[in-house]
């Protein structure tokens, strides 16, 4: 029974809970048992809230017994990235500097999940403050890819993606600043969506780069991601950058799954050289499938995309160095070195931040400090902002020729833990295909399109749509997913080694 319950999709689980076939408490227990059985090896979770999860599940069962109308995801378990606040539950952002902090309030995303009867199982591991592509920059040790425990699960949201891939939860919340939802989805054989910037509230999301950060769904199917996005999206007065436009019908689009007559653009600059052969092969096969489904394939050029990575690694560190200034050992988190002599507050801040931040965080704070300092501001930060304009223009021109754009999500499959840890630039290159969407604020999805023949590891395909047209991702994604499922005969995660 347990293994049956953990392999259900979120949509199936919700329907079984609603019909009374299983109770939400049984579903929660099955997933808590799974976490107990495998998470010592996967390390997707930083904190498991057994008591809270069972109480939330019990509340759903009671509501059902009382004849109340249940929301579409009531009773479905979820793993929450540790960058999102949850009242009274430890929230570390993968950093030592926040060790022991229990936020006094819920993020809007958390509040909406609770209101929808979603059962939050716990908090997932991540690169410190969401900086990284491998989860190796977590202060609490890396997460392991369920496909091969010696490999990275992607980052920064490796914990969320691994939890979903390892059947510890059917749903997870991620956040995507430069690819942190999509790249982990690609390397774990799961689905991940970065919604349009501002579509999901950032209130209670501990900020990395405020003009880029966006929370979104992680799941095993496109429909499940749509159901989750429709729960968490929508205007929030607590976030002044939250968009007021109505949420597009993403669930309807996932159910429609029809690409006939749709123009799909392949981005010339995102592919080819630098991309692993097996990644290119599976991508090309997916293109053929989309064509067979009646889509019109066109090639588009985005000539400034080769500069996106450089612009991103100036804009992100700049915003990060400013956002992370609040971790000063005064209002939350740890304080270090107060007892050593009679230090001033400035000295204590310096000691606290040196002890509390990891290597990559320090590197990016210093990069940002450099890029924003007098004499360098125009040459670095100012120029990067201009490149951002050029990227947006590239997208505008491309979307004049195509309804959606596609590319491989990441240049390679999951690499070995430790392989790129000492080479920041090599690590940054993992985000080369996902970053342009963040700079322009448009939505993007990654879904699995098979295993690379040379290493048997999952390959992700990225779909991008114009701002506020998130429904197009779900329509195209669901159509491709259905066709691939027919080819494979089973969901791709069934091919992962059993844990």
């Amino acid at each position: 029974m347990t293994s049956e319950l953990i392999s259900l999709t979120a949509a199936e689980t919700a329907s079984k809970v609603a019909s009374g076939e299983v109770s939400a408490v049984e579903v929660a227990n099955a997933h808590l048992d799974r976490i107990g059985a495998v998470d010592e090896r996967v390390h997707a979770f930083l904190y498991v809230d057994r008591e809270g999860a069972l109480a939330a599940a019990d509340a759903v069962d009671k509501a059902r017994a009382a004849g109340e109308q249940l929301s579409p995801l009531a009773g479905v378990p979820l793993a929450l990235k540790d960058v999102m606040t949850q009242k009274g539950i430890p929230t570390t952002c993968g950093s030592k500097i926040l060790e022991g902090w229990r936020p006094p309030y819920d993020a809007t995303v958390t509040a909406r999940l609770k209101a929808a009867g979603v059962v939050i199982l716990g908090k997932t591991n991540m690169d410190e403050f969401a900086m990284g592509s491998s989860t190796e920059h977590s202060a609490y040790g890396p997460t392991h890819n369920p496909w091969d425990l010696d490999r990275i699960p992607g980052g920064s949201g490796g914990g969320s993606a691994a939890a979903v891939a390892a059947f510890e939860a059917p749903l997870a919340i991620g956040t995507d600043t430069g690819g942190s939802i999509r790249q982990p989805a690609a390397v774990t054989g799961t689905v991940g969506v970065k919604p349009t910037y501002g579509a999901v509230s950032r209130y209670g999301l501990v900020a990395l780069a405020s003009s880029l950060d966006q929370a979104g769904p992680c799941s095993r199917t496109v429909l499940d991601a749509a159901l989750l996005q429709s729960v968490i999206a929508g205007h929030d007065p607590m976030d002044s950058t939250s968009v007021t436009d109505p949420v597009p019908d993403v669930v309807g689009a996932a159910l429609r799954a029809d690409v006939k007559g749709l123009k799909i653009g392949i981005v010339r600059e995102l592919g080819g050289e630098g991309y692993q052969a097996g990644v290119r092969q599976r991508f090309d096969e997916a293109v053929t499938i989309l064509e067979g489904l009646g889509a019109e394939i066109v090639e588009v050029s985005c000539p400034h995309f080769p500069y996106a990575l450089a612009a991103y690694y100036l804009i992100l560190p700049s915003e990060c160095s400013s956002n992370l200034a609040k971790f000063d050992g005064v209002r939350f988190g740890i304080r270090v070195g107060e007892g050593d002599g009679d230090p001033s507050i400035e000295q204590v801040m310096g000691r606290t931040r040196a002890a509390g931040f990891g290597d990559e965080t320090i590197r990016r704070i210093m990069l940002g400090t450099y890029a924003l300092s007098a004499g360098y501001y125009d040459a670095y930060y100012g120029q990067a902002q201009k490149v951002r304009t050029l990227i947006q223009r590239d997208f505008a021109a491309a979307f004049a020729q195509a309804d959606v754009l596609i590319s491989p999500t990441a240049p390679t499959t999951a690499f070995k833990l430790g392989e790129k840890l000492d080479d920041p630039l090599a690590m940054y290159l993992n985000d080369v295909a996902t970053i342009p969407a963040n700079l322009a604020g448009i939505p993007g999805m990654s879904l699995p399109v098979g295993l690379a023949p040379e290493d048997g590891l999952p390959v992700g395909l990225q779909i991008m749509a114009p701002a506020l047209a998130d429904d197009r991702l779900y329509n195209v994604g669901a159509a491709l997913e259905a066709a691939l499922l027919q080819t494979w005969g089973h969901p791709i995660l069934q091919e992962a080694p059993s844990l």
Partner: protein
Amino acid sequence: MSETPSITREDVAHLAKLARIDLPPESLDHYAEQLAVILGAVAQVSEVAADDVPATSHPLPLVNVFREDVVRGSLTAEEALSGAPSVESDRFRVPRILDEA
């Protein structure tokens, strides 16, 4: 490729001071080397953006958001102080601020 900017250990020490990170002296060379490599790579932004290209600071065409100034609930003092490393008389307690040692 753009020219790799030179970053000295003194530069790193200065940046660390600005960023309030008390780095151990033995780490300065390591960071200097890495920052120089990264800055060398990102400096290519200057190759492409011409003077007539406007800067974009944000993906959305944003305007200021206003709301009525109404009284509403907020965190209690106890809640707001609940995560602080040190508290005294319902306030955040901090080390000395003035240089009077």
